[in-house]
């Protein structure tokens, strides 16, 4: 499976691979690190909030509990007034007016004492005593208060509004605090005092922690007694069925809108105080850090991408160049040069490539040109072997001899011609014993002698045993032809001497030398110079009158190297000496090798 996934990657360009690798190597660890550290940072902030908010909430809870108990104790103010105590102690009235007078007295007192500034959150005060009901309210009631909608519930806790039947205009949520009025002197109960407190007093207590957060108080049925969102007061909290901690904090782990919720329980009223803040508000400050981190990350990634691109380019550019050059070379263009100065692997590769291309070029040149020259040389050799001009002249000579009746001469000439043709046709071997080559040239010279009679004399000097050595074919005939041709043109008498010798060449190497000496007019110096340059140069470029000479030189050079070939030694009017130098080709040794 992995190999399938890798497959496309494998086919990417080297530059892309390098770039991807570099970027992955820098980006992944950085992203990973960044992610982890941001996560940890956020987590620690949440943890801190998770420890701080419960403490603040607990403080608020204690504050609220204390305020409630202080409000509850306000009923003690009744004890300070003997008039009020006297009214409360009254059990029976003689007449209605006395009752109404007391009610007026009491209501006025309640209003004056409890609703004028002691505690601005007190909405109403009720006193129930001996079937009488005294009351004073700041906000009008929806329904007149009476003994059915105002009933004693509990002295021990603050009673949320939904447990009572009293309703104020505007549906103000409230808490009712009940306290028994005790006549301490007579040690008996005088009734109950109800103090109704606007629940919104909690707003002030929690204002420090309610910013951006939801704070609520709920009873054991998870019903909101108080909520920062007033709409919710009285409803049931159903987001979380069971709060996992009673005193402490936890974090919800839902898909979104995660919250840190702090809980504190009030034992007194069996209330749960909850503070809920979305983590996004907690981590608001971290967003700056996160953004800065991201910007740094992007900048860093860009820089590292640029660096990696440059690096990849740097590495792959020469390789790319190499690739293009190789393509060129592949197409056959060897005139390429990869100049690179670096000493690294790529530089070394370029150097190797350069030398390789050079070598290939050289080899191609040598193989190609040698082959070509050889073919041309062979073609020429074939041409020259059956030189029509020579054939014509020979046949003319034979014809003349037949006319003159010189039968012996004719027979010999025809035999010689036959031998020559056979030699020419036996083309299989490139090298032949010197004896064979020499006898061939002798045949040629004898035929020419028949033609030119006394005007031509020749001599073959053998300074070595020529039967022991080999030589390339047809190296003598073109030279001798030229020598006869030029000499006969100018002189009455032509002397051609062929010397075959073994000589030591400058490096001490043994060579075999054929020297063809004539007494011809020699070669004019400019022509000689020209010839010498031709010999040194590429001898096969032009067809010229000296083609035979050059062909021989080229063939030898191709076969044995540039050290061998033809040297011309000539002075005007002093004759010409042509030297053919070949390596010593020992027949015996070659036979051994062949066998």
């Amino acid at each position, binding site marked *: 499976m992995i190999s399938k996934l890798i497959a496309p990657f494998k086919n990417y360009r080297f530059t892309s691979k390098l770039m991807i690798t570099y970027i992955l190597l820098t980006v992944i660890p950085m992203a990973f690190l960044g992610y982890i550290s941001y996560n940890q940072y956020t987590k620690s902030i949440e943890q801190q909030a998770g420890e701080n908010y419960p403490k603040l909430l607990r403080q608020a809870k204690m504050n609220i509990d204390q305020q409630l108990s202080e409000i509850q104790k306000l009923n003690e103010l009744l004890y300070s007034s003997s008039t009020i105590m006297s009214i409360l102690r009254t059990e029976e009235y003689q007449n209605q007016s006395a009752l109404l007078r007391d009610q007026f007295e009491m209501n006025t007192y309640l209003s004056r004492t409890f609703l004028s500034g002691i505690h601005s959150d007190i909405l109403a005060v009720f006193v129930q005593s001996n079937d009488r009901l005294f009351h004073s309210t700041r906000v009008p009631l929806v329904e007149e208060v009476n003994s059915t909608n105002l009933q004693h519930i509990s002295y021990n806790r603050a009673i949320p509004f939904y447990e009572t039947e009293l309703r104020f205009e505007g549906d103000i949520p409230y808490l009712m605090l009940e306290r028994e009025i005790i006549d301490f002197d007579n040690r008996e109960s005088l009734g109950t005092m109800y103090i109704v407190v606007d629940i919104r007093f909690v707003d002030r207590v929690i204002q420090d922690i309610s910013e951006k957060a939801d704070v609520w108080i709920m009873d054991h049925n998870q019903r909101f007694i108080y909520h920062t969102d007033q709409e919710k007061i009285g409803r049931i909290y159903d987001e979380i069925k069971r709060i996992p901690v009673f005193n402490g*904090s936890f974090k919800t782990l839902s898909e979104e809108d995660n919250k840190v919720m702090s809980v504190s329980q009030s034992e007194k009223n069996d209330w749960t105080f909850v503070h809920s803040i979305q983590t996004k508000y907690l981590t608001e400050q971290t967003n700056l850090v996160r953004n800065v981190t991201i910007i740094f990350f992007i900048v860093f990634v860009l820089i590292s991408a640029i660096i990696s691109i440059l690096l990849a380019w740097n590495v792959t550019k020469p390789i790319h160049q190499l690739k293009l050059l190789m393509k060129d070379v592949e197409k056959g263009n060897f005139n390429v040069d990869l100049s690179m100065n670096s000493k690294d692997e790529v530089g070394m590769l370029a150097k190797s490539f350069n030398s390789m291309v050079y070598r290939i070029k050289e080899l191609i040149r040598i193989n190609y040109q040698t082959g070509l020259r050889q073919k041309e040389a062979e073609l020429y050799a074939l041409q020259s072997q059956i030189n029509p001009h020579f054939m014509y002249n020979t046949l003319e000579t034979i014809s003349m001899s037949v006319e003159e009746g010189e039968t012996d001469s004719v027979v010999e000439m025809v035999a010689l011609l036959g031998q020559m043709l056979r030699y020419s046709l036996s083309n299989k071997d490139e090298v032949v014993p010197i004896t064979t080559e020499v006898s061939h040239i002798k045949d040629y010279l004898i035929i020419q002698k028949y033609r030119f009679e006394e005007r031509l004399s020749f001599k073959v000097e053998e300074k070595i045993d020529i039967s022991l050595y080999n030589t390339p074919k047809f190296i003598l005939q073109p030279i001798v032809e030229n020598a006869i041709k030029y000499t006969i043109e100018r002189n009455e008498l032509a002397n051609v001497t062929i010397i075959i010798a073994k000589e030591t060449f400058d490096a001490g190497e043994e060579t075999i030398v054929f020297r063809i000496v004539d007494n011809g007019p020699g070669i004019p110096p400019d022509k000689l110079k020209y010839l010498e340059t031709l010999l040194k140069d590429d001898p096969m470029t032009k067809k010229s009158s000296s083609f035979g000479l050059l062909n021989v030189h080229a063939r030898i050079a191709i076969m044995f190297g540039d050290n061998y070939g033809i040297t011309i030694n000539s002075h005007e009017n002093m004759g010409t000496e042509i030297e053919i130098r070949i390596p010593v080709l020992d027949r015996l040794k070659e036979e051994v090798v062949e066998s």
Partner: protein
Amino acid sequence: MSKKLLFPLFLLTTIIMIYIFFIKSSQGDYEILYTYEPEERELAIEQESKKYKIAVVPKQHNIPYFRAVEKGAIDAAEELEMELIYQGPALADSDLQISTIQEIMDQNVDLIAVSAIDPNKLAPVLKEAQNKGIEVITWDSDVLSSSRSFFINMVNPETLGRHLMDMMALTMDDHGDFAIITGSASAANINEWLKWIKIQHEEYYPNMNLVEVVPTDDNPAKAYEIAIDLMKEYPDLKGVIGNSSVGPPAAAQAVMDLGKKGEVSVVGLSSPSEMKGYLNNGAAQVSTLWSPEKLGYLTVSLSKQLLEGEYPNDLQDVPNVGRIQVKGDTVIMGEPIDFTKENVDQYDF
């Protein structure tokens, strides 16, 4: 690094990251960050299971004032689930009181609360009780502070003494002769009040003349005789202060019996139930007192609190008693109440 290795490595990293991400979100609905234990307040409840046995010792048993105290004490003991012994001498005699205390000490009580007749005589026996590990407090009438933990006083003695004098003066129009019928000569609280009555008299009422201070030993019969005698001896007598609860009823009865209503005014410390008739028919003008039941109740409440290891606090709200004041080692229950013709019906003690 070889290319073959690189790609799996990259894959692995990605997989790990995804894994971490999913692990995190699949841990359930909550992650608890912090918890703490709420304050421990359950210890006190455990101790409550122990039932304390206390003894409250009045000066004497059979006068209305101390019977009212007994009523309050019994109520408190019932409500607070304590065992109570309310036992006092038949007569206000300190020797009898000492033997009562000795008797109680053998009954394995945790605390003794005493209203002392004679602080000096009582000191040794209270010391003895303390040495036995019994807590000792006093109420109504104090002993030396070294012999008890604290003293529960009904009212501030200075306030009370000066107030009694003021009431006397008010009914006598600030001039004329008056006498004081006090309780036992040795009782600390009564002597303290007497001291402040005299101070108030000297400071503000030069036209008034205190003719005599007579002790009654809290004996109602004796008190009546003394009142008759006083009125006979001093024909110009304009007023009588009863400095202990037996005084004012005796004086009022004497006023009635001698037909001196309107001539001699009677004020003093006595309960409304005893004084109701005299106040209504004009034989007495003002009776001042506190609620003796409340005193009994407070005594038992604070006894329990002390046994639980807690000293009374200033402005403490004692259930069914109200707020108390604490000054040094003295608890003050509240302010005195004046009973007059108008309000005496409101009170049932």
